[in-house]
């Protein structure tokens, strides 16, 4: 019994790992294709049908390139940087519920690696540690562009973590739990959380963009002013790791947005379809991935629409707009919850 549970967990971990990598790989393709479509172009279409094998070609290119470490760089930290970026990007997938229960041989298995009861805190912890990969990589390159990119990344991530945390606190107050599994379960019973927390969702969305260093918040890697930002000196697969980590972060944060605010794997009228357990779970997983892919598309859509912020604008938005808004949201949530629980009567 126990060993089958462990075996199942190992299989699930490997599956989540593989799916994350595959999705991140084809996100690079999707990014180029979406950019092309939004700009009236065709995009990659030479490698395989519709250019579907383009990520393979890109990956091969990355592997074949010369591995170069600058002479003045700090060798150990230079290698550690991309590893940390990749590690923290992959760690987040652990707590996300990917679907309902699967019943195999009379035993229900959750499609979630672990449902720890501090799930959201775990997420915030991993996200806050995620900045080290960029910081260490940028500093150890011994290049002023890299250093400025690293400094920008760290200050940006710290600033937006606060607003993100405050937006999440309103959500936690409402749901009364820190476990992602329970949050999803509550959304099955009632409406999706976006109905109750539209402002919180907006703040979380903006902060998610800033935390993943995506446009319009891609100041750490501005090509036009910092060449490549923190990965200026990187080449070969170490550069690939940095770029890949960004796409993994994008995938995971899309999954988070779907989980926290859009009902996770639940979809309307799912229980009136008359499907049995396993079929329903698979359908739920499918629906969940549809939501995730929509948000990945949304990320790209925003990237190819909005121009980049200036640095002072970024800081103004973070500290002077989002944090007060998040506190206001917290306040309103508190009052509404107080009324509902009869504190003021």
């Amino acid at each position: 019994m126990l060993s089958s549970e462990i075996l199942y967990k190992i299989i699930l971990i490997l599956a989540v790992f593989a799916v994350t990598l595959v999705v991140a790989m084809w996100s690079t393709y999707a990014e180029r294709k979406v950019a092309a479509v939004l700009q009236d172009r065709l995009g990659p279409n030479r490698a395989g049908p519709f250019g579907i094998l383009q990520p393979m070609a890109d990956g091969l290119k990355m592997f074949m390139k010369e591995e170069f470490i600058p002479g003045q760089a700090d060798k150990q930290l230079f290698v550690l940087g991309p590893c940390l970026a990749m590690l923290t990007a992959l760690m987040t997938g652990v707590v996300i519920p990917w679907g309902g229960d699967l019943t195999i041989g009379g035993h229900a298995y959750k499609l979630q690696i672990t449902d720890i009861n501090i799930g959201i805190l775990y997420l915030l912890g991993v996200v806050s540690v995620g900045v080290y990969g960029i910081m260490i990589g940028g500093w150890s390159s011994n290049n002023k562009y890299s250093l400025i990119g690293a400094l920008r990344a760290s200050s940006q991530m710290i600033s937006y973590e606060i607003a993100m945390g405050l937006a999440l606190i309103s959500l936690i107050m409402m749901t009364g739990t820190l476990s992602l599994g329970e949050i999803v379960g509550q959304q099955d019973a009632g409406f999706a959380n976006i109905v109750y927390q539209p402002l919180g969702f907006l703040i979380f969305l903006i902060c998610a963009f800033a935390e993943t260093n995506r446009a319009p918040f891609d100041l750490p890697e501005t090509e036009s002013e910092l060449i490549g930002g923190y990965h200026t000196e990187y080449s070969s697969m170490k550069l690939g790791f940095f770029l890949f980590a960004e796409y993994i972060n994008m995938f995971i944060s899309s999954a988070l947005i779907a989980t926290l605010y859009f009902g996770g794997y639940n979809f309307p009228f799912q229980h009136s379809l008359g499907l049995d357990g396993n079929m329903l779970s698979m359908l739920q997983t499918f629906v969940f991935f549809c939501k995730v892919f929509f948000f990945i598309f949304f990320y790209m859509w925003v990237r190819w629409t909005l121009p980049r912020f200036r640095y002072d604008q970024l800081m103004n938005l973070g500290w002077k707009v989002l944090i007060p808004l998040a506190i206001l949201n917290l306040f309103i949530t508190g009052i509404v919850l107080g009324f509902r629980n009869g504190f003021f009567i």
Partner: protein
Amino acid sequence: MQLTNRSKQVADTKMTWLERIYLPGIFKGMMITLSHAFKKAPTIQYPEQKRPIAPLYRGQHVLKRDDAGAERCTACGLCAVACPAEAITMVAEERAKGDEKLYREEKYASSYEINMLRCIFCGLCEEACPKEAIFLTDRIVPSTFQRRDFIYGKDKLVEKMDQRIDVSLRQTNNLAEFKKNTSFAHNKTS
């Protein structure tokens, strides 16, 4: 002066509250980009699809032979003089006895070179030529890796008799009329 009616008068007025929260503006912009997703891409995928070329397209030059296979060029140098980019160089030589089959005139170009990197494909050489020897064709000069490969000599410019190049589209009606007049030596076939 107003060139188009698309120009918009901008004013440095204070933004309204709706403008300052930017969300409606962002939404509008997102809709514009999304609308472009449903437009057809104007891309022409070059090696498979080719853009239609005008009959008067000015591409790689050809040095014509007449119907009997003799080179028409007499190395008068007018094309080189006319060339604004100074891309044409030639060496003239007197025709030797027994070469009448090869060269139409008594003087011919023993070497004739066009530097395709300098050439601007204006077609003035074609206009200057009194012998209807040089024409621009609808062929595109292929790219290579070496500069020296862009200097085209007679081996590349003179047309082969087994693969003649049709330049009739480049000849105006006036010229076609004139060519019927066989009393001029120019129009004699051999």
